[in-house]
């Protein structure tokens, strides 16, 4: 910036200047106007600041790039994991469905009958009703907590045959 005299300076050239006046020791221009003087920072400090700024910028840039790359790597890695898990899930779902089908098929009335016939089982000729004694356990109401089968069996057996 060239040190041009301010309009005020030109109006009153003898007026002291503080900020815009020429620095002491500076060489006035050939046109006779006095250049404004400023306090210049030290060159070393300016250089240090510039270096710091450059290094900071470089560091920030490198760090940003590194972060970006790392983020991208993690994202890609997660994507692979996600894909693998999705495949696992699909496979497990398929396996579950096939097992479910197998269970349903094996436990269907049709197959149970075939299997039981294969084992030599035949339908009973008659049904024998066992009269329950007076101490028989009350029939379940439906809303009570189910007892264990062993406990239930023992009670029922005792009720049916107290002597045994």
């Amino acid at each position: 910036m060239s040190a041009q005299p301010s309009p005020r300076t030109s109006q009153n050239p003898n007026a002291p200047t503080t900020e815009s006046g020429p620095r002491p020791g500076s060489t006035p221009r050939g046109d006779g106007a006095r250049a404004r003087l400023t306090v210049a920072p030290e060159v070393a400090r300016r250089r240090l600041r510039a270096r710091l700024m450059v290094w900071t910028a470089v560091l920030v840039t490198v760090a940003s790039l590194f972060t970006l790359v790392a983020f991208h790597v993690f994202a890609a890695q997660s994507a692979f994991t996600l894909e693998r898990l999705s495949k696992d899930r699909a496979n497990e779902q398929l396996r579950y469905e096939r097992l479910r089908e197998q269970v349903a098929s094996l436990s269907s009335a049709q197959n149970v009958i075939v299997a039981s016939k294969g084992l030599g089982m035949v339908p009973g000729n008659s049904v024998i009703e066992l009269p329950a004694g007076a101490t028989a356990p009350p029939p379940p109401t439906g809303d009570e907590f189910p007892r264990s089968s062993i406990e239930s069996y023992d009670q029922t057996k005792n009720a049916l045959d107290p002597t045994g």
Partner: protein
Amino acid sequence: MVAGRPPVRPRPVTTTKAKAHAPRAARAARPARRLGVCSALLILAFGALAARVGQLQLADGSRYKHLSLDLALHKIPLTAERGSIFDTNGRDLAMSIERTTVYADPTLVTDPATEAATLAPVVHVSEKALFQALSDKGTAHSPRRFVYLAHTVTDTVAQAVQTLKLPGIGFVPESARSYPAGAVGAAVVGEVHADGSGAAGVEQQYNSLLTGKSGELTVEQDPLGHDIPDTQRTQVDAERGTDVVLTIDEDLQWQAEYSLLDQVKATGAKSGMAVVVDVTNGNVIAMASVLGASPTTPAHVADSGDNNAPLTQLFEPGSTNKLITLSWALEHGYVTPDTMFDVPYSIPVAKGVAPYIDAEAHTGVPGGIEHWTTADILRESSNVGTIEIAQRMKNQEMADAVRAFGLGTQTPVAWPYQPAGLLLSPSQYYATGKYATAIGYGVSVTAMQMLDAFATIANGGVTRPPHLLDATIDSNGVRHPAPVNEGTRVVSTNTASLMTQMLQGVISNGTGACAAIPGYNVAGKTGTAKTALATGGYASAATMASFIGYAPAAKPRFATLVALDENNLSYGGAVAAPVFSEITQFALQQYGVAPTDLANTQYSAAQLTAKAANANVNNPCAVPHGSDLAVAQANLAHVQMKPAAGSHAPSRTVSKTASDSTAKSGATAGAKATTDSLPPDPSKHT
């Protein structure tokens, strides 16, 4: 930097020599012009480029963007998995499962003949078909790169094909519908078309529920079909279809089909059907259809593509309709259970019309006139007695009665193509319509409608709307119970109670003795109606033999209907009642219903009645299974070979389940020897 600049050369003085080189010097002397021209050209060129870019990006940008996306974006439909169908206990009746489909790229197949021969026994497709598929390589311009070889094969088959490592053979996953229960309930569950949509049965009825919501995957792909990474990729997940939970109990369904099938085989019936309803909640827990033997196929349980007869087949109910007539007469005070009637063998209803008659002559009583109470008329299934009761009712009352019990309107069970049935309007009753209706002719009903009428009486006179859908389970696994219709009162509790008492008499000492169940009191009614012919009139020797009842009579739990479309004069009490007994007994035991008649009072009486009427038959009330079935079928074949006996059923199927009166009559086994009422030819009356 001025200091570093070379000094300005003084302008050369023009000499003669210099003048000779003037143009060259002039050109050299005007670099600014050349620079200007070059700049202008560059500006022009870049300007043109910029203009074009601007045009492409700004003016036509959106168009080209869309064109580009259209080329690169591919939408892949994601098929929604079809919902499952469960029975009432949560067992799978139908489910979708991913299977493997085998395909071929014929252009890669080197030896079609060898590959076809190798694959045929593995994928169970004819070698010829495989060879044709593998040989068709298309044309040079449009080569054939894909052809299906076998759809949805099992894992074992897929693995076997993979092991062969044949060139040009590939595999793709494909969803398939699986029915783990096999043929059990097949006609109820139905089937799906090749595209996965419901074609019959529950699959069709609840297709909109079972079909899920398709999703879509949008990806950018290169011309070779590879996904372009880091580009637009959107996915709308497919929504699984809703699961449907039926009220059907698979075990009971099997028992119903098993009992019915063996009886159809034993009697040579054209078809049979059975329905069991839980009277306490209206759940239809079994619904069986059986098709009789034809010249090409043996008797078998109805397949997935066959009609579900209990909801679609119309028939005249015959004597089971007397329940409605008598209930209405009781309700409106025309009779009481003890009202006495003089019941002759025949009764004229109009001039010029043949009189209605009972199935057997009233022998052994003075003048052939029986003195029966209302209960006796029901027990004996007397047509004449029922008509005498109907004579006390107006035409409109008869019409109101059948409509009140649900005939003539579709049942609440949601089912495709369910008929409403046919009823005569009172204005069309003329001379005989009321009487024909009273004994179950002149009306056509579905099995479910008739069972609904009995369930109404079993439920104390209030209808118990049957339903097949128990609940739905949405894609989030939340169960939504199906809404159940409220019942409406048809007759009073007292009337229902009186009817139940009278219907028990049908089992103890009447036509339905074979329906008795040890340990339980049963109420029910037999029905035998001559089969209407498509050409008009009635078949001379073909009946719809049925039995409808419920148990335990005191506190009904199950109402069951069994009907067999017979090729001969078979009677409901003889062929349908035993099946009723077997199915209902299984249901009572399966559901842990406590016995109500441990002394077997009713059962013993019924056994005596049945044996008195079938002295020559070893076990008249059993459905033959196993070796007994083989014997029954042999007897049937023997009878059918005798032309003279063509109008008579084998001894077992016409065994009489006689009442006291028929026992007195001494009637022999045959068409005459039945207590279930068959008019001589109903077509003459209507």
